[in-house]
């Protein structure tokens, strides 16, 4: 059973289409695996067992009738619980949405279904995707399958842990400042943040609208390319989604990198980045050189300003987006004599500490007298950060950095110190500010913990990311890694 649970999605689909295994068998095996490991991992908030089984039966019947099968036919998929799936709660791991059932599907959900994917459940996250450890969930924390005393990262920690533990081959996450890439790195799996606008955000509960992007978490690069192929593309329901054709991403998977120019921004190996992480980046650079790439150091001089600019832009947008949770149209309501008291009490009761802290910071940064000094200043610095990348991409096809400054940290370690928690995203934030695509791929281990490296490409050049990540995968061999989860059969 373990064997099936750790098969890549594209192999599962192939076996299903060749009728070697039925969709119902696939779903049954994965649901069984979920039951076995969930007491330890706790990656899920909701399971859709009956729906998944009946969807599988429909697929089996369609295949028997000789219908054409989609690119994800028979593949079990988990969704981060800030993506709308009608018929099931979408909680954002918040008490304020604990009983919210969205009346529609997110565009990515519709596209997954049309491709034949089977949605098996909704995964845990930091409340409203605000956090880096999944400890900010109002319901329960998720553990790192590689070491149950450590965090899986966040905010898409449930999605990354579920994929790492063999509970699903594919999960979707959302990434505002690293929330796909950082947990993917901590859990030893692949995570992609696409170019801003590549994937429709319709049906993704908004955190910071100019930074948010949905992306896949998988155990191999080919699956990542396959899933992006399915979810990418223009959507009239998201005015920021980019029109135009989507390239065939799987055709960019190649095992040599001849002529590729890769830059390592030296700022990403400086203060705050653990020496062991720097060593892994060095090993990766050597491997890429062996594969034919030309690797050189470069500079992104405004890197140290990315974190402060990010926390002003992201919290300002969040404070505005979260104004909708007023207890009027949906979600929790704490009644009071007057409407404005009801709103303030609803928000007191419904939001957790990190969400309140960010609403406060964002409201402050936007308030009269501070707007120019904080929010406007941060937007100008955002321009400087984007220009750094533009200059680097004049010389390089992609950039190589660590994904995280350290391997997965211990549960509780950073909970009392918000700034220390924010620093765990220091390698990923600038990418969101500049709207670029970036992928995290497992590159090695520090002790028993997996470590990831990040590749960053110019806008809409996800193909470059797949090319380099796939080549690296061939020499690192991470898809065969298994976390040491002892399962009682």
């Amino acid at each position, binding site marked *: 059973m373990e064997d099936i649970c750790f098969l890549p999605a594209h192999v599962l689909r192939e076996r299903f289409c060749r009728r070697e295994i039925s969709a119902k068998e696939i779903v049954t095996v994965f649901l069984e695996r979920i039951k076995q490991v969930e007491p330890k991992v706790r990656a899920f908030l909701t399971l859709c067992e009956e729906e998944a089984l009946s969807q599988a039966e429909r697929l089996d019947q369609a295949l028997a009738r000789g219908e054409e099968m989609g690119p994800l036919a028979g593949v079990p998929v988990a969704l981060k619980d800030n993506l709308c799936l009608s018929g099931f709660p979408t909680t954002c791991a918040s008490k304020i949405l604990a009983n*919210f*059932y969205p*009346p*529609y599907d997110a565009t990515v959900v519709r596209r997954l279904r049309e491709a034949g994917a089977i949605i098996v459940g909704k995964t845990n996250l930091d409340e409203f995707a605000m956090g880096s450890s999944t400890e900010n969930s109002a319901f329960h924390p998720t553990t790192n399958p590689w070491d149950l005393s450590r965090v899986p990262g966040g905010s898409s920690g449930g999605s990354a842990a579920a994929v790492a533990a063999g509970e699903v081959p594919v999960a979707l996450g959302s990434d505002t400042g690293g929330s796909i890439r950082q947990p993917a790195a901590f859990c030893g799996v692949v995570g992609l943040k696409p170019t*801003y*606008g590549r994937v429709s955000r319709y049906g993704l509960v908004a955190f910071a609208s*100019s930074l948010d992007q949905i992306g896949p978490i998988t155990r191999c690069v080919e699956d990542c390319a396959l899933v992006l192929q399915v979810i990418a593309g223009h959507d*009239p329901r998201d005015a*920021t989604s*980019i029109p135009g054709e989507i390239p065939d991403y799987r055709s960019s998977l190649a095992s040599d990198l001849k002529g590729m120019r890769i830059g390592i921004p030296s700022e990403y190996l400086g203060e705050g980045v653990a020496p062991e992480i720097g060593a892994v980046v060095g090993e990766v650079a050597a491997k890429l050189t062996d594969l034919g790439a030309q690797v050189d150091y470069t500079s992104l001089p405004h890197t140290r*300003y990315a974190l*402060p*600019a990010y*926390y*002003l832009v992201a919290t300002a947008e969040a*404070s505005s987006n979260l*104004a909708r949770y007023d*207890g*009027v*149209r*949906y*979600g*929790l*309501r704490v*009644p*009071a*004599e*007057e*409407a404005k*008291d*009801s*709103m*303030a009490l609803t*928000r*007191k009761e419904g*939001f957790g*500490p990190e969400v*309140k*802290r960010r*609403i*406060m*910071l964002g*409201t*402050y940064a936007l*308030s009269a007298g501070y707007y120019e*000094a*904080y929010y*406007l*200043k*941060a*937007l*100008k*610095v*955002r*321009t*400087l950060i*984007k220009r750094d990348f533009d200059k680097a991409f004049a010389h390089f096809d992609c950039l190589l950095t660590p994904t995280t400054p350290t391997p997965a940290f211990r549960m509780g370690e950073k909970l009392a110190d918000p*700034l220390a928690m924010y620093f765990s995203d220091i390698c990923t934030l600038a990418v969101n500010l*500049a*709207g670029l695509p970036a992928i995290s791929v497992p590159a090695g281990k520090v002790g028993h913990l997996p470590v990831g490296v990040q590749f960053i490409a110019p806008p809409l050049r996800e193909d470059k990311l797949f090319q380099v990540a796939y080549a690296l995968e061939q020499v690192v061999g991470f898809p065969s890694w298994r976390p040491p989860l002892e399962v009682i059969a």
Partner: protein
Amino acid sequence: MLSRSEVEHVAALARLELSEEEKELFAQQLREIIEYVNILQELPTDDVPPLVHVVPLKNVWREDEVEEHLEVEEVLSRAPDREERFFRVSRVV
């Protein structure tokens, strides 16, 4: 930098009721965070335009035609309180 009365003012703007402990904690934590983000002030940015959005899309319009939309009943059924086809709230004025 961030006094308790400022914290109360910001909380009121955000329609957020805070406990006494939260006011205390946030005053201290926000002070630390703001102190940290102040390193942005050392960058000269007078000639730098703000970047609001990375996608060069402008004025995304569509034809003004009625399209499929959610059923009113579907939407209202999620409200904490309602009356006929309206959301019902407590006294406003």
